[in-house]
């Protein structure tokens, strides 16, 4: 017990506790708009965090990641509407279906590398969208699906907050565990990882499955929150692009990178969208180019470099 209290007194953990407490009391005393906005930010943190698990750590750029969000949303919706199942049961089922689909599509698609994997996943996401559109008897197709209305914004705030927490905990585990070493080895050199004893297919599939699970979770919560979903909304390619940008902006393959990226980009988007609705995508494009050119390792990489430089200059070089 004494040990635990000692660990919790470390600055890092004190900061975590402070943030948790702040998020817990935040909803009281802010406007409904702020509450909704922060819930949205949380959703993007989950999405950027989930794609980070596969793309950030193993280097497999998943350009169809939105498919798992859409699957999570539709499974949740269909189970709640057609089978009258409770929300949490439906959402969890959505996560599991997303996971299963991830593993299923990963077996063939993860044999491809680089751009080919990205293209295969992009095509897969579009194909699933078409299937959802055509399966009218279950999904109501292009008409969209109306879920039972539950208009308690506090509820969605806290549920989304919990989902963020679980994403962060899993990412933290990846960072610290042997599992993370396998993923980063695959990103560094897949061939060398294999001959060093890493079962590359198993580990990259596991990362893919995990990332699909969390994207599905975000989709499930989104569906119930919005109460209305339709295929071109929850299978929107532009959302994949946003996730990717957020991850790279913050720093891919890091714990806090996707969180920072999601916060910054969602805030910028909110401002730009309100003021320059037509210039929005252009400005977003410029942001992407600047990231790639100026800080390939994202904000986290930039901070590390700045800190590294300071550290270097304070120590005389040999």
């Amino acid at each position: 017990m004494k040990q635990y209290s000692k660990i919790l007194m470390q600055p890092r953990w004190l900061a975590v506790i402070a943030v948790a407490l702040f998020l817990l009391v935040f909803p009281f005393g802010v406007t409904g708009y702020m509450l909704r906005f922060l819930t949205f930010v949380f959703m993007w943190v989950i999405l950027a965090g989930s794609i980070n698990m596969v793309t950030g750590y193993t280097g497999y750029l998943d350009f169809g990641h939105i498919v798992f969000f859409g699957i999570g949303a539709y499974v949740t919706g269909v189970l709640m509407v057609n089978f009258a199942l409770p929300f949490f049961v439906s959402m969890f089922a959505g996560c599991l279906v997303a996971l299963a689909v991830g593993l299923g599509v990963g077996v063939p698609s993860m044999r491809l590398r680089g751009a080919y994997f990205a293209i295969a996943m992009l095509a897969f996401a579009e194909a699933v969208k078409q299937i959802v559109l055509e399966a009218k008897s279950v999904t109501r197709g292009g008409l969209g699906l109306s879920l039972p209305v539950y208009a308690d914004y506090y509820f969605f705030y806290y549920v989304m907050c919990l989902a963020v927490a679980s994403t962060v905990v899993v990412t933290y585990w990846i960072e610290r565990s042997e599992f993370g070493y396998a993923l980063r080895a695959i990103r560094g050199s897949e061939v060398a990882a294999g001959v060093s004893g890493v079962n590359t297919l198993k580990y990259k599939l596991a990362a893919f499955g995990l990332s699909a699970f969390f994207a599905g979770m975000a989709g499930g919560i989104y569906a119930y929150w919005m109460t209305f979903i339709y295929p071109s909304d929850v299978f929107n390619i532009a959302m994949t692009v946003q996730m990717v940008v957020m991850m790279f902006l913050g720093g891919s393959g890091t714990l806090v990178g996707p969180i920072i990226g999601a916060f910054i980009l969602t805030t910028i988007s909110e401002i730009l969208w309100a003021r320059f609705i037509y210039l929005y995508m252009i400005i977003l494009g410029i942001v992407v180019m600047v990231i790639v050119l100026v800080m390939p390792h994202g904000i986290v990489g930039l901070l590390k470099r700045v800190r590294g430089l300071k550290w270097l200059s304070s120590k005389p070089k040999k």
Partner: protein
Amino acid sequence: MVILEAKKISRYFGGLAAVKDLDFTVERDEIVGMIGPNGSGKTTVFNMISGVIRPTSGEILFKGDAITRSKPHEICRMGVARTFQVPQPFTGMTVLENVLVGCIYGKGMRLVEARKKAEDILEFTGLGDKMSLPSESITAQDRKRLELARALASDPEILLLDEIMAGLTPKEMDVVLDLLIKLNERGVTLFVVEHVMRAVMKLSERIVVLHYGEKIAEGKPEEVAKNEDVITAYLGERYA
């Protein structure tokens, strides 16, 4: 006792035979060299042994068991380790972390136990003071050392070294030669692809010569050096 054996292995890329009906054996504790002009199939042989590519036909045995259809990670865990001619560090990881991967997955250690072992290996290979550097920032020579260090992480019984000396100065080469001889004394069998003749002649007890994917000679270093076919393959007809 034979530790590694290839039985009539061939590998075709399209219509081209990179390796054709190749037979060889490596005895336990032996140091065997494999030489041959550029494009003679040496790296292809290593790729087949380590499971990176499969032979089109033929069989590879490790301690009597067929590994022809095994996955790279399975072959690694059985006790076969290799280095790459063009170093393939795990970029984005430190030098120490590179070796930790081998300890964890090649040897089956937990992260906490692996650290000590990885540090020992890095000391042994002369990278002790570079452990915490990002692996993409070290020099070409150090990358070669890192290849060796990472291969040692799984405690291999046989080590396949793909041009580990290339690009080293004679002095650095002697350091690596000493390392390899020390390893061999500890009971690691070495199978060495090398272009640097001085090194391969000094190190090897037996040499296999490849030309256009076929074995054209085999024997003691001095025998091979005098072999007419070998001289022709390297220097052309006039010198034979």
